[in-house]
């Protein structure tokens, strides 16, 4: 993954962007953070958050004109949150001691601040805290400028005095009754100040000044030209802001403070000879690009104060704080158990994955995370910026495979299963009997063949009847496991042999019964016409007499994640369910917003815990019986105890078979089902016989052992190989406590152990386990 792609992807995830309120607040108070503290009744902590950005919290919490509220997300529902009132509540409730300023090392640079209004005072405070030698020139005889015009009831003098006490102990010089201009009559001229000081901030109000008097460049309206980003004027040492910049009609105390702060940053940069303009876009107010979903938020009117003079009571404040949405995105995380499992969100995940791929020496902690994604693509569908973790995780797996860094154990079992399906045991490629060419080819898929082999002949016969010109049959695995495992070379050879099979049958039309095959063929065989049986059934009519065996139900349709965007297919599936007499219930995550069943991306092999979380969540979305059109989805839901049909059950099944409760076949059974299917199709359709499947050895496997085998992914055949090895070489042990035999064997990469007892021409299997570590001796 390239650096640039990483940054582009990180940028797409806007979860870390500030909420609208904070972005619009000129000094960017972390309002969401403050309100979260109020909800926890940690009012002093809330106050600290507020005070971190606001130099005069007493004043601002009473007179701020609240530009933040205009950008509050609640505006889109009802009314904005009463932010300032909550700030004041925190201040009033604050019991923390305000830490005295620690005195900084004094620098040799001298700064002049002209005007002791909120703007000038903020610049003075910020610069003094950095160690600059600051002198304030003020025309009147006190600090605060225009705030003294505010009625005492709104802004008591004690509050002002308390806020301004921050200057106590800081070495800031005050020169009162000092009017500055470049008029010759004045004792202090701006020109002289500019020669004596390293930088100047002009923070005078517009009451008693004439812009002409400073000798700075003016615009057509006679206002001083000020760069909005840096507050620089035409004089390189002079910066200007506050009410002077905006005019008294746009007076805003918090913007004055913000200007003072921006000017202080500019002056600091000037004094350090740093760039004035680099990376400053987000200093003043801006519009947030955070997305927050409000579709399920009920309206709730703003909280009124019983007594506006004393502010919110605790109860009122808590109610109002409760209205805040604590804005964030997490659209994807809320809907995906995998993303939720790792406790963070894609911006961080993308970075972690990138770092994991860059490790040369050391532990790659994110391997399992990369391999646990189901690659279902729901996040890409939900994300306002279409960030798709499936793309990120798949690419990462491909890189790991190429570098030889893919943990060997993660996908080996699934790939061995795929290998079985593409071996002589299952593979088949035939024209319809009596035909020398195929108009279309039916590819049922290995998982349907493993799970419900008995339906495949019925579908095939139906297709042969309905499609003129011959329908070929192709058995095998589509290669999806290789694709999901990031094995590009294996995927491509699998595709080549499918292509060759199609060429042999002289067809360019492929009909499949599995959504994963459908997806993979569409992706890798763009020139082949790919269809699913469901759209065909919808179009050609369903097989005669089908559907009569299952009495009408209300069924919740689980869409397959592999066919998320196949709207026509979604419609056909529903048409068929309805035509069979059932009612449909839509799940909350449905159609293009559906979720994976836990098999996709080989999730269940990489992280069973997360796959089970995903399945459990899915199956609890409705109490109705589910219907799925993917054999793996059906079996995964059934394995966690959900009543679920395959759509083929509804067509060909019967109530007395209790198909919704049918247990999913285990791994060994699936392979055997495939092998038997091939034999029975050859016999019944083409009249050919293969050697009967010889069970060399009869295994007696109790239920508990079977469960252990499934959990540890040990096949009947693995056990047989151990016993054959032990019995033929005599390399076995016996536990004299119970007389069980114990033996091990390593046919390829895994060493299998079996604990057994010979019994009636067979072997009773007590236990089995395996490991990958090799015994060297």
């Amino acid at each position: 993954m390239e650096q640039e792609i990483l940054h582009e992807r990180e940028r797409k995830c806007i979860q870390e962007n500030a909420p609208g309120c904070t972005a619009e607040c000129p000094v960017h108070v972390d309002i969401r953070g403050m309100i979260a503290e109020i909800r926890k009744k940690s009012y002093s902590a809330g106050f600290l958050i507020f005070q971190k950005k606001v130099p005069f919290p007493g004043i601002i919490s009473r007179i701020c004109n609240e530009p933040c509220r205009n950008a509050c997300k609640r505006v889109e529902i009802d009314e904005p949150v009463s932010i300032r009132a909550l700030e004041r509540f925190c201040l009033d409730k604050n019991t923390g001691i305000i830490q005295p300023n620690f005195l900084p090392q004094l620098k040799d640079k001298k700064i002049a601040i002209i005007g002791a209004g909120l703007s000038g005072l903020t610049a003075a405070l910020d610069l003094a805290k950095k160690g600059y030698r600051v002198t304030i020139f003020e025309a009147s005889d006190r600090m605060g400028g225009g705030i003294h015009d505010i009625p005492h009831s709104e802004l008591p003098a004690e509050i002002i005095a308390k806020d301004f006490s921050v200057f106590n102990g800081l070495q800031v010089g005050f020169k009162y009754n000092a009017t500055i201009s470049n008029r010759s009559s004045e004792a202090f001229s701006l020109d002289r100040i500019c020669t004596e000081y390293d930088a100047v901030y002009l923070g005078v109000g517009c009451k008693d000044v004439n812009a002409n008097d400073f000798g700075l460049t003016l615009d057509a309206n006679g206002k001083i030209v000020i760069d909005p980003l840096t507050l620089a004027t035409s004089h390189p040492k002079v910066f200007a802001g506050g009410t002077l910049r905006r005019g008294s009609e746009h007076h805003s105390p918090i913007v004055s403070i913000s200007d003072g702060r921006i000017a202080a940053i500019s002056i600091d940069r000037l004094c350090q000879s740093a760039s004035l303009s680099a990376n400053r876009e987000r200093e003043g107010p801006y519009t947030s690009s955070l997305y927050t979903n409000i579709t399920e938020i009920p309206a709730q009117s703003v909280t009124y104060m019983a007594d506006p003079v004393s502010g919110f009571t605790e109860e009122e404040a808590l109610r109002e704080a409760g209205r805040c949405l604590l804005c964030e995105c997490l659209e994807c995380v809320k809907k995906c158990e995998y993303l939720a499992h790792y406790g963070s969100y894609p911006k961080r995940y993308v970075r972690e994955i990138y770092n994991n791929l860059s490790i040369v020496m050391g532990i790659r902690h994110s391997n399992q995370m990369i391999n646990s994604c189901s690659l279902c693509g729901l996040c890409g569908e939900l994300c306002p910026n279409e960030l798709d973790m499936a793309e990120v995780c798949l690419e990462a797996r491909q890189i790991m495979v190429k570098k030889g860094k893919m943990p060997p154990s993660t996908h080996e079992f699934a790939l061995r299963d795929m290998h079985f399906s593409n071996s002589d045991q299952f593979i088949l490629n035939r024209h319809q009997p009596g035909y020398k060419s195929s108009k279309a080819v039916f590819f049922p898929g290995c998982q349907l063949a493993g799970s419900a082999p008995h339906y495949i002949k019925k579908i095939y016969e139906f297709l042969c009847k309905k499609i003129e010109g011959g329908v070929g049959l192709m058995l095998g695995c589509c290669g999806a496991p290789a694709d999901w495992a990031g094995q590009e070379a294996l995927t491509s050879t699998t595709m080549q042999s499918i292509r060759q099979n199609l060429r042999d049958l002289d067809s360019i039309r492929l009909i499949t019964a599995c959504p994963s095959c459908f997806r993979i063929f569409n992706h890798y065989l763009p020139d082949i016409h790919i269809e699913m049986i469901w759209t065909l059934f919808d179009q050609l009519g369903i097989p005669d007499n089908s559907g009569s065996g299952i009495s009408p139900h209300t069924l919740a349709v689980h869409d397959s994640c592999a066919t998320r965007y196949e709207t026509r297919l979604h419609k056909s599936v529903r048409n068929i369910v309805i035509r069979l007499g059932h009612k449909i219930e839509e799940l909350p995550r449905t159609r293009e917003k559906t979720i994976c069943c836990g098999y996709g991306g080989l999730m269940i092999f990489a992280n069973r815990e997360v796959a089970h979380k995903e399945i459990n969540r899915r199956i609890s979305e409705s109490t109705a019986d589910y219907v799925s059109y993917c054999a793996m989805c059906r079996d995964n839901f059934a394995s966690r105890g959900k009543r679920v049909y395959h759509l083929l059950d509804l067509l060909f099944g019967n109530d007395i078979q209790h198909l919704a409760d049918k247990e999913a076949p285990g791994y060994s059974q699936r392979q055997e089902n495939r092998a038997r299917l091939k034999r029975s199709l050859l016999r019944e359709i083409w009249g050919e016989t293969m050697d009967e499947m010889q069970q060399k050895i009869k295994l007696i496997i109790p239920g508990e052992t079977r469960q252990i085998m499934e959990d540890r992914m040990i096949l009947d055949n693995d056990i047989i190989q151990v016993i054959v090895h032990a019995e033929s070489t005599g390399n076995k042990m016996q536990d004299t406590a119970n007389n069980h035999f114990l033996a091990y064997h390593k046919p390829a990469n895994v060493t299998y152990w079996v604990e057994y007892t010979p019994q009636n021409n067979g072997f009773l299997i007590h236990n089995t386990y395996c490991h990958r570590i090799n015994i060297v001796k």
Partner: protein
Amino acid sequence: MSAEFNLQQSKILCVKCGEYLKTGSVTLEYLGNNFPVELYKCPQCGLVFIPENLATGKMQQVEKMLEDK
């Protein structure tokens, strides 16, 4: 490793040699890493016994650790 391994002699018999397994040193290997461990083995032919809790516990952790390295 678990307490039972401190016993010098096990209840496990090597069928071929008719000897009880005894603790002895065995080398295990994974992905090019070797590590010597004390396990039960046949004093005569060297057949090794790896108990279930070792295979599904400690050994699995080590496998995972080495695979992520």
